[in-house]
């Protein structure tokens, strides 16, 4: 505290907001249904995302049952298997993870953490949720449409996505594309809010470099999403026109069932470029909020300031920028120019540098810290280990020569489930255990939480570690059943049974979590305002759960950064961001 001028430390008048500026709900409908309060919208987003996520979880069970016991379930034929793959992937990546991190955590935490009363455009924020819900409903409608949902794979590659023979060619693909277009429109409305609230809505004293890393992560991910989602939007609109009007954006000349189709000269590679121009930033759109949240969980539950805060911020920004220059590493086997492969392998390996910096900083934060093994901390530690595992296999796959033989095997499935499935979902759980007391005023049950953690964490490794191995054996991905293949040893089938049993157990463990969330809502221990003794602003609200407008009459004033834990010479081991320096010394 040496280089701060004395006059800056003096008392500062807090900013007051006149009552009439706030939106006030007038009825039950505007308070809980068509509500403009970001906290309610966050809960709506989260509940919708987790409900549709449960559907995707059941789909993964069905796929695993088919892989372990081929043909034993009558309802799974080869067409429905592809439909399950497609819907599982699309739901998990876009409708669950993206919506939950940005729409759920973003809406709840951004206004509270930066000391705002609400998002800057509350009405647009409300519309964003309802468009998202509509997108989910259109997606679900695919299950009930004639021919079922599309089975084109979650990447929806043309030409097969819209050719006869692909399941859901009649209605499924149209509903899928329409749903994605709606999702992007809804997300853009929400995303504008998150960005402008961080830029314009911060309270007095909250400089950018005092923001918690959670806000930095969500902010950067939102900026990336706003710039990357248009690529998916364009791809979806163009494919919809190919399918409905018969244009040839992506469709080359094709002979189908002995018939020459009217398409000619379109480029399937163009679709891959557009899709992955969105698709790779999407990985970091999910990862950056996870990075931010995990930083805050570790710092709070280890009672120590985050190591290298500045470097953490720079790394987030660097990852955000670099992630736009690596998309073609998903296309090594598309037959593109080998020099492109060289370029994209290089950028892919460079992005490992800022990512590794973050991992080192988390570990160094834990070094000689006062670690409390609470449930959120367990999930945060689980994330670090899992992310390192998934990231290392990513280094393999980032190199062209390694990727080419592995690209079509289960190794890739294991890699991306580790790095962008299990790792972010562990953070989602950690975040929910951490902030549930603020959202509801009650603690989640710790015993059930630990049971949930250990089964999920160990179970995820039981699922995905053997999957790397069977991938190395050459077991192809996307196959409905293996049949008679000479190069796959019988042990691969045994391992498949093992993986399936593990998947069923991990899935069932999520029911424990659901039970915990509902039971604790009524019977959980009273949490009080700040059960984790945390510094950030959301724990300093006058009411818990925070009331309408978040703060009392006066907005909080921020005096320090978000990580003042175990400051030497203080009696308390944490200093809230809004505690005036004089009061902190007296306390």
């Amino acid at each position, binding site marked *: 505290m040496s280089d701060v001028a004395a006059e800056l430390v003096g008392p500062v008048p807090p900013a007051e907001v006149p009552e009439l500026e706030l939106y006030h709900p007038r009825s039950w409908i505007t308070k809980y249904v068509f509500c403009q309060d970001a906290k309610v919208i966050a809960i709506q987003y989260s509940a919708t995302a987790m409900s549709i996520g449960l559907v995707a979880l059941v789909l993964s069970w069905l796929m695993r049952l088919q892989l372990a016991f081929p043909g034993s379930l009558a309802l799974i034929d080869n067409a429905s298997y592809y439909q399950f793959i497609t819907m599982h992937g699309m739901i998990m990546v876009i409708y669950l993870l993206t919506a939950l991190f940005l729409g759920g955590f973003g809406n709840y935490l951004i206004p509270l953490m930066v000391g705002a009363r609400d998002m800057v455009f509350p009405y647009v924020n409300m519309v964003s949720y309802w468009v998202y819900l509509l997108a989910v409903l259109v997606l679900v409608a695919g299950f009930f449409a004639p021919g079922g949902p599309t089975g084109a794979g979650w990447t929806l590659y043309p030409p097969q996505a819209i050719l006869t023979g692909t399941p859901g060619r009649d209605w499924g693909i149209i509903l899928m594309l329409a749903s994605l277009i709606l999702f992007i429109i809804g997300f853009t409305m929400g995303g504008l809010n998150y960005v402008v609230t961080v830029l314009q809505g911060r309270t007095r004293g909250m400089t950018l470099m005092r923001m918690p890393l959670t806000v930095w992560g969500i902010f950067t991910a939102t900026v990336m999403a706003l710039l990357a989602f248009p690529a998916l939007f364009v791809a979806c609109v163009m494919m919809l026109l190919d399918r409905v009007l018969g244009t040839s954006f992506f469709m080359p000349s094709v002979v189908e069932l002995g018939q020459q189709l009217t398409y000619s*000269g379109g480029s399937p590679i163009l679709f891959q470029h557009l899709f992955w121009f969105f698709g790779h930033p999407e990985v970091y759109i999910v990862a950056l909020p996870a990075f931010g949240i995990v930083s805050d969980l570790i710092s709070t539950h280890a009672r120590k300031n985050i190591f290298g805060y500045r470097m953490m911020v720079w790394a987030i920004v660097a990852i955000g920028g670099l992630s736009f220059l690596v998309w073609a590493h998903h296309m090594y086997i598309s037959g593109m120019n080998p020099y492109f492969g060289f370029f994209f392998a290089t950028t892919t390996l460079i992005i490992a540098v800022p990512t590794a910096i973050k991992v080192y900083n988390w570990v160094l934060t834990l070094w000689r810290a006062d670690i409390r093994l609470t449930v959120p901390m367990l999930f945060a530690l689980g994330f670090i280990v899992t992310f390192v595992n998934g990231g290392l296999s990513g280094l393999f796959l980032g190199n062209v020569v390694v990727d080419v033989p592995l690209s079509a095997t289960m190794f890739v499935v294991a890699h991306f489930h580790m790095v962008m499935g299990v790792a972010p979902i562990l953070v989602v759980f950690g975040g929910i255990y951490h902030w549930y007391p603020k959202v509801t005023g009650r603690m989640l049950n710790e015993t059930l939480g630990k049971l949930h953690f250990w089964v999920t964490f160990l179970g995820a490794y039981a699922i995905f570690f053997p999957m790397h191995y069977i991938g190395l054996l050459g077991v192809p991905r996307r196959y409905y059943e293996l049949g008679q293949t000479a190069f796959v040893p019988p042990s691969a089938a045994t391992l498949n049974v093992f993986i399936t049993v593990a998947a069923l157990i991990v899935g069932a463990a999520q029911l424990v979590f659901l039970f915990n969330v509902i039971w604790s809502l009524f019977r959980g221990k009273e949490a009080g305002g700040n059960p984790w003794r945390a510094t950030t602003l959301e724990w300093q609200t006058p009411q818990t759960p925070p009331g309408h407008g978040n703060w009392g009459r006066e907005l909080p004033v921020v005096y320090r950064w978000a990580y003042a834990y175990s400051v030497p010479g203080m009696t308390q081991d944490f200093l809230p961001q809004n505690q005036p320096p004089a009061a902190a010394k007296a306390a």
Partner: protein
Amino acid sequence: MSVIILFLAGIAAIAGWWLTRQRLTAKPWLEEGVIGDLPHEGERGTAAKVGLGVFLAVAGSLFSLVISAYFVRKDLSLPGGADWRPQPVPNLLWLNTGVLILSSLALQWTHGAAKRDRIEDVRSGLSIAGASTLLFLVGQLAAWRQLAEAGYFAASSPAAAFFYLITGIHGLHVAGGLVALGRAGAKAWRGATAEQLRLSVGLCTAYWHFLLVVWLIILALLTGWADDFIVICRAVVP
């Protein structure tokens, strides 16, 4: 994909310039007390301007991607782009361009009138801008009709498909702007003062100028001028 990369490089430059002014090298763990004067506290105007800026970046990204796709499709289709037949452009587009320029100029003038507190001028300016924008949209639809009558449908050639796609997306953005303009107009006639209208008129003006620039780029693309430009670029950068 070079168009979108160039666009993103521009966005990155703006973001980088902005970040350098945010004291990113500060050591927050050493600083206690209130620092910085933040541009907020109920200033809805600034938030709306920043919001529009962010939206323009998103829309710019969308148009850059469509233009990127146009070039990729043209080059990748077949070796030498053998199936790429240039699309004749209806002369009506030139008239439409004039009308769109007129609406942009009208809004600029309205913005000036709002600053000088002349509510009568604001009302007439808004009417001229609204009418000319509507005329532009009608003109675009008429151009579509002319093409269809001449036998160019979306499915008949890739260039025709891109023509409908690009003009369609641009037209939808213009139509969305008309909604905002209509709301400003409704306020003007319901007795709002020029001062109260200054913000919404200013936002509309910025959006119209953006859409005009996008339209001029699209026009250069569709009429083939952009091709000559690319040839010059390729000659300069081997």
